[in-house]
């Protein structure tokens, strides 16, 4: 009796352990399978774009997973059809200038909100923060009219103008500055540093990380911007590459090969940034989500 009672748990234990481990092994395999399927779902369209872009017209409708006769035909045809180099330069200018200005205005405004008390400061901050929630479609007509009155339709400058300041940049930077140790700023002030010097020589160098990830975020989202350019564009020469792709789809019918080549060119800069700076890109997107 006693031996039996003692033996039973001893026998039972390895059995349950084995059951759990095979079960969790199956769970892991099933989990990996699901994750791989999901990864394919996420990655495949991008991969297919790349593959299709290297397929010359006569093999475009193949279903093999890699180009059997890779060629750059589609790229030359895309370059012939739309001024894609010019558009890429425009996109680069648009993204780079917007990024620099949003950072500049963001840093100045954030400093004002974080460091100074002035009448209605909370209200102004809320007003700025709420602009982030106004759907673009609500204000597009008046914005469009304003640009039209300024005679700036169809120019890169018009693309940049509404993008020189953004609530998101101001909010993220103000938050970072509020979190900055007060003692350091007070110490600098004791040494006779002006607000201007405190901002540029104390705060900004110390917030490099935040500023860098914000810069990545602004650059990528401006690069991918579609609405506003779509409203303003009249000629391909003065437009951005996203609009080039859109024009390609409507004007040229279904020239899938060159379209995929143009799409690849339009995504390449962002993909390269992502592959090189993956961790920072992910962080910058995350910070913008958790406010």
């Amino acid at each position, binding site marked *: 009796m006693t031996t039996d009672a003692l033996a039973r748990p001893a026998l039972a234990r390895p059995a349950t352990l084995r059951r759990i481990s095979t079960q969790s092994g199956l769970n892991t395999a099933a989990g990996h399978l699901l994750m791989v399927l999901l990864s394919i779902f996420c990655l495949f369209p991008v991969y297919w774009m790349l593959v299709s872009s290297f397929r010359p017209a006569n093999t475009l409708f193949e279903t093999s997973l890699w180009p059997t006769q890779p060629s750059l035909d589609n790229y030359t045809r895309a370059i012939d059809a739309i001024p894609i180099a010019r558009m890429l330069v425009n996109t680069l200018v648009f993204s780079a200038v917007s990024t620099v200005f949003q950072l500049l205005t963001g840093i100045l405004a954030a400093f004002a909100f974080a460091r100074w008390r002035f009448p209605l400061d909370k209200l102004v901050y809320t007003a700025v923060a709420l602009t982030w929630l106004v759907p673009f479609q*609500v204000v597009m*007509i*008046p914005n469009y009219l304003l640009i039209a009155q300024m005679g700036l339709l169809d120019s890169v400058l018009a693309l940049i103008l509404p993008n020189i300041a953004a609530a998101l940049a101001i909010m993220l930077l103000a938050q970072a500055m509020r979190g900055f140790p007060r003692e350091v700023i007070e110490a600098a002030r004791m040494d006779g540093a002006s607000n201007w010097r405190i901002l540029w020589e104390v705060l900004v160098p110390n917030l490099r990380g935040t500023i860098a990830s914000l810069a990545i975020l602004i650059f990528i989202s401006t690069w991918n911007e579609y609405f506003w350019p779509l409203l303003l564009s009249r000629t391909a020469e003065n437009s951005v590459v996203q609009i080039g792709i859109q024009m390609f789809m409507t004007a040229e019918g279904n020239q899938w090969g060159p379209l995929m080549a143009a799409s690849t060119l339009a995504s390449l800069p962002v*993909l390269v940034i992502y592959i090189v700076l993956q961790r920072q890109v992910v962080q910058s997107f995350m910070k913008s989500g958790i406010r």
Partner: protein
Amino acid sequence: MWIYWPLVDAMRLSFYQWNMLPTSPQIFVGWENYQRIFALPKFWQALRNTGVYILGLLPLAVLIPLAIAIYTHDLPERWRNIYRAIIFVPMIIAPVVAAAVWRWLLDPSYGLTNQAIKGMGLDPVKFLSDPDVAIWTVIVITGWKLMGFSTLILSAANANINPTLIEAARMDGAGKWEIIRDVRLPLLSSTVLFLVVMTILLGAQWSFTYINVLTGGGPLGATTNIYYLLWDFGFSTMSVGWGSASAVILFLGFGVVAFVLFRLIDRYSFHDN
């Protein structure tokens, strides 16, 4: 300057009839624009579709990412990073590019998807031209773009959960599922709520580009949502009054929904001390 002044201007223009040409007169029509819009079946259809978009996006933008975040958390670091990196890729692809690529994949005669469907001996699916299917196609593509972002946010929140809480639950004899149900989910609830609110507020807006590029709101208005309708009013029919009036309706509606949702968040979010 680019938000508030235009907002006021939109309200002013919503009482006028004008075709956007600087030379033609702006005629004051009072509330007529609003009355016409509310009387339009298209408006109600767009509103209903907006609801469908939001409901359809919720699983893709919240549920699946939640499952991924919890599942990948226990994986070895290398796998975790690889999966999350891959799932994030659609997020950085430009919407127009995404639309172009999906259009190619879904092409009724040569697209890979339909070739595969035909390969299995089934009839090709008109993903973008069948009114019943098109809206779901657009929803899935929008979800494809969003999934990585939600996964990331939820993963971060999940990683922030204090491991001692999980350990304590395990000591008390809680199994894997019980830990997820009783510890992780309650602690993640405020992040989940945040994503739900984001999806409700912005979900329909995110699909704009795909509607614009892939279906143009059709077939028969089946994929139009309220944001797209606004665009349509403003820039296809060149009716500033209509466009502005619907913008004001949208803004007020959006404001009310946002206000209610943020109040709900305040009341129901679960705080981890």
